[in-house]
């Protein structure tokens, strides 16, 4: 049975990764699960300099989801290399480093710095953080800027590049195509969705930042639709993410056209989720007599599904 997939030039032992910003730098989870069972470890977004992050409250729970406005707090590229890379470098599975900047030049500079490290699996370009005024989402909601960022990083590194797209656009297709045309090897779809909550007792927004990014099971149908659309518009592989918390969720993304998936918010409350999904995929493939997980990629597209009478129910 084959679970291995390729994301650009990067080989993943299985298609289940974790979403940037929900898994720290991997080390925090090392006591709770065997990181080497994952498809890849994806670390929190890094920029050139350390980032203090937004004031609190930074997180609010909503029905079947969370809204966060952390503000990409992080150690900067030097701090990351010093504090976290020695641990990540020892992992047997690939590490994907999520990067961001406030200018095209900064994205390229961070990409160049990380290109010099040995053992990096891929870079994921965060052009879609909803909580940063400068940088982040502005690059992901203007196709021309998006193309510039991807092209600048492409020129700065030979590492596989994965562009993480924003859901906050009229159609994801031009953004997916712009990233592909500028040399991105893969896409991550999607980042959290801009949202807010109000405390009716204080009559004020709950988050200090007023707005934040919505994540969790409540965004899954939105993410699935974006993966579905992008998968038909580009040839590069897609990592699907948004509210995945069980095997059926992961299968939906793969059937919509994702080559791999990422578990995000579920890591906060159920740290074993990714490993449970890997076991669940194996079980599904056994039941369905599938030799290769890649047989499922995009199988829900028109004409490729199965007649209702032939279906076997899965829990």
């Amino acid at each position, binding site marked *: 049975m084959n679970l291995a997939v390729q994301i650009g030039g990067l080989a993943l032992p299985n298609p289940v990764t974790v979403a940037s910003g929900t898994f720290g730098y991997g080390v925090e989870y*090392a006591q*709770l699960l065997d*990181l*080497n069972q994952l498809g890849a470890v994806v670390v929190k977004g890094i920029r050139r300099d350390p980032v203090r992050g937004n004031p609190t409250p930074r997180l609010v729970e909503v029905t079947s989801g969370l809204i966060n406005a952390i503000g990409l707090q992080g150690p900067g590229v030097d701090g990351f290399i010093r504090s976290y890379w020695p641990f990540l470098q020892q992992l047997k599975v690939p590490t994907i480093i999520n990067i961001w900047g406030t200018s095209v030049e900064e994205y390229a500079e961070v990409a160049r710095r990380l290109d010099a490290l040995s053992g990096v699996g891929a870079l994921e370009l965060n052009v879609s953080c909803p909580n940063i005024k400068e940088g982040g989402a502005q690059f992901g909601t203007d196709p021309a800027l998006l193309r510039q960022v991807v092209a600048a990083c492409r020129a700065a590194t030979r590492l596989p590049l994965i562009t993480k797209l924003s859901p906050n656009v009229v159609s994801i297709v031009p953004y997916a195509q712009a990233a592909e045309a500028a040399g991105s090897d893969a896409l991550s779809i999607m980042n959290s969705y801009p949202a807010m909550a109000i405390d009716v007792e204080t009559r004020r927004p709950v988050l200090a930042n007023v707005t934040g990014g919505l994540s969790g099971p409540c965004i899954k149908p939105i993410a699935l639709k974006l993966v579905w659309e992008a998968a038909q518009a580009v040839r590069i592989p897609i990592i699907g993410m948004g509210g995945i918390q069980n095997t059926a969720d992961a299968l939906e993304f793969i059937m919509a056209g994702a080559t791999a998936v990422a578990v995000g918010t579920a890591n906060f*409350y*159920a*740290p074993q989720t990714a490993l449970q999904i890997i076991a669940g995929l194996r079980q599904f493939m056994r039941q369905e007599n599938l030799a290769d997980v890649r047989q499922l990629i995009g199988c829900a597209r028109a004409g490729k599904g199965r007649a209702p009478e032939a279906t076997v129910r899965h829990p």
Partner: protein
Amino acid sequence: MTRGGAARAPKQCAGQARTAPPPVCAPMVEQTAQIIANERDTGPYFRLRVRAPLIAPRVQPGQFVHVRILPLKHALLRRPFSVFQVAGDTLSLLYKTIGQGTEALARMRPGEELSLLGPLGHGFTVPRPDGEIPLLVAGGYGMAALYLLAQRSPRKGLVFVGGRQRADILCEAEFRALGWEVRVTTEDGSHGEKGVVTEPLRAELQRRAPGRKLFACGPTPMLRAVGRLAAEHGLPAELSLDQHMGCGIGVCLACVVPIKTAGGWEYQRTCTEGPVFDFRQIAWEAAE
């Protein structure tokens, strides 16, 4: 939801790390815990006892557990609670019903299961036999975070506890049973002295301050007042801070508080570097 902090989290963990020794971590585990008892204490307060053999024996004073209330389907996050008491392979929590999570928890019955992550956080420093005399200061269910410290401290001291009314004064008898003197204040005067908890503390420190150390858990305004008293009298103080928490294990960065550094201040995590901080580290003004 408040937690406690306790015992220094080791900088290097032995044991469960399967990949490599992580540079910073607390020796946490995730385990299913069966409810042994879950009963109302007074007013909106409940006492919960669970069997958690992988966690209970390792809890240090002021540490917390992060609880997934499994019947909740649309509220995703775990809830943090200070560990109140431990006995063998069981631990107890003292909680107040304040929202959908704690209300669902209060409806759970013995035999039902919770998922616990713990022990978490960096807790209180247990006093040494020849060290300062501990003065504990609690607001409401902040008492829960201080019980293990009182129990394990080789020096007995004073406990100052305050609340709005009589029903907010919890586990007073248990602290007395440990041989500690308890001074109660209520804002409405229905039990103990009328006023706020820092008033009798101030009076006590004016009478005699040297050789004392303050340990506090409660609402932020109370903690700030305790910090000011410690500063006025030149005393050490450890404060257990409460902040909205997400993951509890240091990755989501929701529960941060401003902490002084050599060059200014930075946000540190209540769940990992805290919840207990030396009052001199906290940059309160930065959060305003």
